[in-house]
């Protein structure tokens, strides 16, 4: 029976009879049925529609009811001063009132209003959303960026000088992106601040050292490298020289070029916004343009336990500018069709406002229901997936679990669910969880995936 239950073409994990029976029982109870459907969708190699992902990671957990899932009918106790959502350029879709630019781009993205996992811890929920796995197991799984780095990076013929998985600008910390894949698949974190000149990209652009100074130093080094001169053809010396040349191609060439935002028109830079986030969006577009398959913008400041509305008023216009301009710019350059833009954080926030001291209008963590946004790369725009209830407290219909969202992204990238990950224990481990892993799933986002 196991033969037909798993409709995998290859790399089917061997399972024992007892395990097979256990699974049947679970499937009978309905728990695994949805997974079954999701996994079957991958039986054949998916066709790649997208080449790259830009992940806008809303670190801290953005308030879903203030941003993409407004609930003006719930009154002041729930929506505070943000009570007049904006109509967008897609009729029937309303979003938060502090997002006028995104309101004009709604035809480009779809909003998932029924994301859920029920976890309220930053680290654990972050892990859940970005790996699709339950935290706390013996194995630490890689996040989507590292999976893409494995399947689309140097092992898959990527030849770029810039590493295939870039984080703007700092890694989250407390979360090992690569998990058991190891340091080779960790992101390259740029450091620095793209809204400053120069954008001090770690290892590539050193503030205070002009490119002339870099060249002078390099010449000094070459002239003092007496051992290399004594052994010019020694294999180790040759390898060292090649690595050094590549490094300088980055420092003086390609790397310096990609991260040099002065090459962009001032008008466009202004449209993105002069903030660190806005300029990060612009850098992300430049990276994708050069073939980097995965870029994460780590955008903090959304953990608004206190003074939520002040934070929204301060930060949402900045987010609106960067995100909306990114969509527009990608669209104008014909890159949106091949670039997935994924916006979201680890959870949402308590829909009912805490007005009392010391919160003064704050919102807590809310993993029961929250929003995510997908655009481009084969995802349809102008759609709403699922919904939350009247107060934004529970999933009302069509729950979307983290693994469903990640699985849909992998599918658009042409990454097969059954691609094996190199597990250090030699266990059969795949890009997508197996039914036996008991990961909750409600199926891929077929409703917004182009046929």
């Amino acid at each position, binding site marked *: 029976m196991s033969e037909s239950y798993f409709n995998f073409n290859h790399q089917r994990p061997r399972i024992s009879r007892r395990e097979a029976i256990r699974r049947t029982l679970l499937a009978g109870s309905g728990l695994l049925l949805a997974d079954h459907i999701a996994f079957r969708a991958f039986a054949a190699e998916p066709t790649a529609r997208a080449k790259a992902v830009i992940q806008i990671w809303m670190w801290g957990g953005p308030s879903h009811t203030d941003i993409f899932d407004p609930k003006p009918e719930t009154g002041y106790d729930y929506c505070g001063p943000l009570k007049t959502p904006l109509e967008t350029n897609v009729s029937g879709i309303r979003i938060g009132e502090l997002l006028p630019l995104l309101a004009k781009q709604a035809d480009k993205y779809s909003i998932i209003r029924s994301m859920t996992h029920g976890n309220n811890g930053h680290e654990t929920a972050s892990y859940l959303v970005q790996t699709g796995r339950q935290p706390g197991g013996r194995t630490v799984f890689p996040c989507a960026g590292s999976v893409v780095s494995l399947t689309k990076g140097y092992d898959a013929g990527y030849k770029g000088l810039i590493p295939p998985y870039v984080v703007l600008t700092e890694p989250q910390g407390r979360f090992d992106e690569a998990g058991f894949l190891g*340091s080779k698949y960790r992101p390259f974190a740029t450091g620095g601040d793209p809204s400053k000149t120069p954008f001090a990209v770690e290892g590539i652009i050193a503030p205070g050292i002009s490119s002339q100074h870099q060249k*002078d130093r390099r010449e000094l080094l070459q002239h003092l490298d*007496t051992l290399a001169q004594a*052994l010019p053809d020694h294999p180790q010396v040759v390898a*060292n020289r090649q690595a050094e040349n590549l490094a300088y191609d980055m420092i003086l060439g390609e790397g310096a070029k990609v991260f040099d935002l002065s090459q962009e028109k001032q008008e466009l830079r202004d449209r993105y916004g002069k903030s660190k986030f806005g300029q990060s969006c612009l850098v992300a577009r430049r990276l994708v343009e050069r073939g980097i398959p995965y870029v994460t913008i780590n955008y903090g400041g959304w953990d608004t336990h206190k003074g939520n509305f002040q934070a929204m008023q301060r930060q949402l216009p900045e987010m609106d500018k960067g995100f909306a301009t990114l969509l527009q710019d990608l669209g104008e350059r014909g890159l949106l069709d091949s670039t997935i833009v994924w916006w979201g954080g680890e959870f949402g926030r308590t829909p009912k406002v805490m007005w009392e001291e010391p919160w003064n209008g704050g919102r807590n963590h809310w993993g029961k229901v929250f929003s995510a946004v997908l655009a481009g790369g084969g995802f349809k725009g102008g759609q709403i997936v699922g919904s939350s209830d009247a107060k934004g407290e529970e999933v009302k219909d069509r729950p979307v679990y983290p693994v469903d969202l990640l699985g849909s992204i992998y599918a658009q990238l042409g990454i097969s669910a059954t691609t094996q990950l190199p597990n250090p224990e030699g266990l059969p481990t795949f890009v997508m969880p197996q039914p036996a892993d008991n990961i909750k799933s409600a199926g891929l986002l077929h409703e917004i995936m182009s046929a």
Partner: protein
Amino acid sequence: MTKLVPLFLKLLHSPTRLNLCMRTRAGKWAVCQSGWLAVCWLLFLLNTSLFAASPFEGPMPSAAQSRIDELVFARLKTLNIPPARLCSDGVFVRRAYLDVTGTLPSATEAQTFILDHSPGKRAALIDRLLARDEFADYFAMKWGDALRIKAEFPINLWPNAAQAYHRWIHDAIRDNRPWDKIATDLLTASGSNFEKPPVNFYRAMQSRTPTGIAQAVALTFVGQRADHWPTNELANLAVFFANVAYKATGEWKEEIVFFNPAATNTGALNGRNQIALFPDGGTVTLSPDQDPRTVFAAWLVKNPQFARSLANRTWSWLLGRGIVQEPDDFRADNPASNPALLDFLATDFAASGFDFKHLCRTILNSQTYQLSAITPNPSSEAAANFAFYPLRRLDAEVLIDAVDQITGTNETYSSAIPEPYTFIPSDLRSIALPDGSITSGFLDQFGRPPRDTGQESERNNRITAAQKLTLLNSSVMHRKIESSRMIVFQTSPGRQPTEIVSGMYLGILSRFPTAEEQQAAQAFAQYGVGRRQAAVDLAWALMNCTEFLYRH
């Protein structure tokens, strides 16, 4: 700055200008310098004039002076491969410090050695280095890799046990305990992982089945990958470990490893006598009255392969590759490049009572070890037969320790799962880290072994462009150099340009600069952006030289 490089290139490339300048400088020095600097100057003039090829080489090796040299040179002669020259004193002092203690010599240590004219100074330095604490730190690191000393996944020793195990190995190396005793202790220990540290040998492996243990034993003490053995031979070896049992206690993460005569694993005694086969085909009757591990350990340490595998491992640590290479992959179809050499080392090691320092001393005092890395023929055959000292990138730990020593800075370490009772002093050197789970971004990037399998090949010393970016241009390296005590000292008022350049060469490359290097560095400094920036640039350049990054 812009105009300076072409200028100093001209200086370098035009013989007339160069000579003229040298005279001018020499004249200046005659006025302002005296004492040892004049001696140094003479010395490096001597260096460059006698062995004009490079500051790296000494005379040709003389006729073989030790058994090692006889065997190596005889082999090279049959192959018609000439050996390299001997290395210079400057190269030797750096090499010996790095290979014996994993630590860079200080400027003073390098200078004292180079200026010492006593004939037996290399042997004397070797003895001093073998007595240093860093010798134990460094070889405990090497054994920590081989024994997989690591708190977290996939080894899961847990922090206190990893610390206790490391401490035990460290002290055994420091006290130069005989290796037959160390191996016997590791193989026969019973008790708590906290109180009896060697029991952790049986815990530090991914698979604790009798077969898994047998594989770990074969890798560690026989130098063989037992997963390539025929199944029945692996099963025969596993019999000796089939009665190893584990149990938890009330103490958090404490575990008892013990002999359970009634264990029921495949091949276990299960209360009865049993005939077992040693890997060499000999038989023995095991009884439930005696832990089979004791029987195996007694057999192992008398078997020539035990001495051979340890001698080969040690040789590979000091000379960059094994006589059997990989050093932990003895196979019939992977023969020793010089079998007589391996036999000699193994026999001598066993005869010395498995004295590890004796083995190191014997190798280090050979001319073979002291050959230069400069060779006209870096062929793989010449390399496999030790015709020259092989260039290899410094280990991650050694490299960052060297950078920190020069700049007077520290590392920040972290562990995947921070454990409240593990205190890491801020000045702890990377070679002395007890636990493979405690790491830093630098160590990860430069290929420190994850300690998952215990194979020597886990360590990755291949250079990459990303590593180069870190070394050439990262904020971390810039900060270390900028804040370096060395820069402050070297640019303090009153220090002469020649002193500055010589001091930085001694501190970073462990030798005096040649006349040309002194000249080039000063030309750079004089037309540059001020004294301090010039010193920073010079330190940066020297720390990015092949000579700094590679053992040579």
